[in-house]
């Protein structure tokens, strides 16, 4: 299935070169987990801290589950903060 992958801040370096403005559409196998997507793009699991699917937080214990539906938007950041 196709999903959208967004990698921001220091995770941007793991994006394939075709990505535009931190965003790329990718094909993942049915039943893939967030961690499997991370591994595929060589994003160290410890670096992806804030993980959102369609803007909703993915709890650490959900990151090995098959939770994707076609068209989902997966966005990730290292630890961030601001003000």
């Amino acid at each position, binding site marked *: 299935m196709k999903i959208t992958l967004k990698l*921001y*801040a220091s995770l941007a370096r793991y994006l394939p070169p075709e990505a535009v403005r931190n965003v790329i559409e990718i094909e993942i196998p049915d039943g893939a987990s967030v961690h499997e997507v991370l591994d595929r793009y060589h994003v160290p699991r410890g670096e992806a801290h*804030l993980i959102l699917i369609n803007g909703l*937080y993915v709890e650490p214990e959900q990151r090995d589950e098959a939770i994707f539906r076609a068209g989902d938007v997966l*966005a990730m950041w290292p630890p*961030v*903060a601001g003000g």
Partner: protein
Amino acid sequence: MAWQRRLLRVNLTAGTCVEEPLNMEWAMKYIGQRGLATKYLCEEIDPKVDALSPDNKLIMATGPLTGTMAATGGRYSVITKSPLTGAVACSNSGGFIGAELKQAGWDMIIFEGRAAEPVYLYLENDQAELCPAGDIWGKSIWEADEYLHTKYQDPLIRIACVGRAAEQGCLYSAVVNDLHRAAGRSGVGTVMASKHLKAVVVRGTKGVGNVRDPKAFFQATAAGKKTLAENAVTGQGLPAMGTQVLMNVINEVGAMPTRNMRDVQFEGAHRISAEAMLEPRESDGKPNLVTNAACFGCTIACGRISTIDPQHYTIQNKPEYMHASGGLEYEAAWALGCDTGVDDLDALTYANFVCNEDGMDPISFGSTVAAAMELFDLGAITTEHTGGIEFRFGSAEALTKAAELVATGEGFGRDLALGSKRLCEKYGHPDLSMTVKGQEFPAYDPRGIQGMGLAYATSNRGACHLRGYTVSSEIMGVPVKTDPLSTEGKPELVKAFQDATAAVDSTGLCVFTTFGWTLEDIAPQVDAACEGGWTSESMLEAGERIWNLERQFNLDAGLSKADDTLPKRLLKDAAKTGPAKGMVNRLDEMLPLYYAARGWTPEGAPTDETRQRLGL
């Protein structure tokens, strides 16, 4: 004893500068800076006073760790009654002047009265002198800064100054120090200008020597620095990306106030984000961001130094804007960008430069422009009012022209200088003002981050993110992750953040340290520096005491439970997109529980028992 134990009282009416001992009994209860200066303000002015009358006072206050070797120990605050909100105002700034003031041997300066003619204060260690400011009145902050540096021929003097906007009465004027650091919110600069005080020039060479236990202080501050360096946010994230890293985060979670909070996501967010600030531009191949920058003693260095595209329309034939200067922080980028629908990074950077140069709070300015754009959209404001400017959402030209007009107090700039609340009232649509207690919202839509709705509604200085930044927990998971769409536990969370922040704001440290530190890291530093036996518990209690003191000031000023609310739009109009789609802010579920958690009556007043418990 990192306090200097003395303050300078400047009576502008009489033209006198008098030294006074610092009230150490109060310092033991209110720490310093925000807490201690608020205590002085409460004791010395009638809360009902007209904020712009000579009877209001303006206090510049440092904390006990200001000017020391503690990481980020360079902060100072400006405390007064706000002309924008009618509530207590306390605006915090970094840069270098706070540390300089402390090193000149002073904990705070209290300004009272009003000078007959414009003056500035020159303070060099013990020597304090009021000087005529006729040559710099009517000049921008950048021009005044250059004039004063040239006059004194000393590159090390530090200057806090108000701009032309404040002189013209703009109600959200800032006090800007070191060219682009600001005590930004609630119109503290407007009060300073109303006293005919243009600038405060400080040179201090005494240092801050009287630390209670130097060895313990060295150890505690070194341990604190190590923690900040090893933390991914304070050690890597903030220096590399600044606060602007949040632009894409908050947009993704659907809490980005957009077009005067009509929407909760901005399609142009990526074009004005931290990531965009790093992209080389076509014209000269350079990115917007030149480097990061640090305030005094800061080991985080979140500041942004930027340039504008040399080909951009805003700076043609304006060499003064072609150099690198203070760039966009998240709050400024949001207010000038998402809220007005403008996604032109260079136009935003220019508007930000103008806000720095003439001392306008970019949050209030941007939000007021956004309200004007909505009024224009509805036909309540026309080009007749605006002097021909098409005030449309998304118009970079309208935004940058508006900045110039407010800076100089010309034309439609006079209406925009009123702030969103008074502007919307003037043009017959008070509900379109996105404010609490008359102060404009910052960059988090409380429909998508429920706790922030309560934090805004109950903030003692009107809508503000820095009074209780539950975003930290609700979005980033610091110290624990909570669900931004749920109201459960939020009253207690908001209270905890408010009290802890009030304590941190009273120490001389930057609140951004709390992404890496808790009060457990801060208390040993304060305790080693000062007498008083400070622990994280006693600091938290001092924070709660300060919060209640501010609350009491506001109640005495005439504010009430009715002011602890949000604009109808956020309570009635559901978010249209994103995770919060279909939701409003559920303030009614949280507010009674919050009052109870605070030990306040159902009407929002501290009970006698609470006052007694806190020693008020």
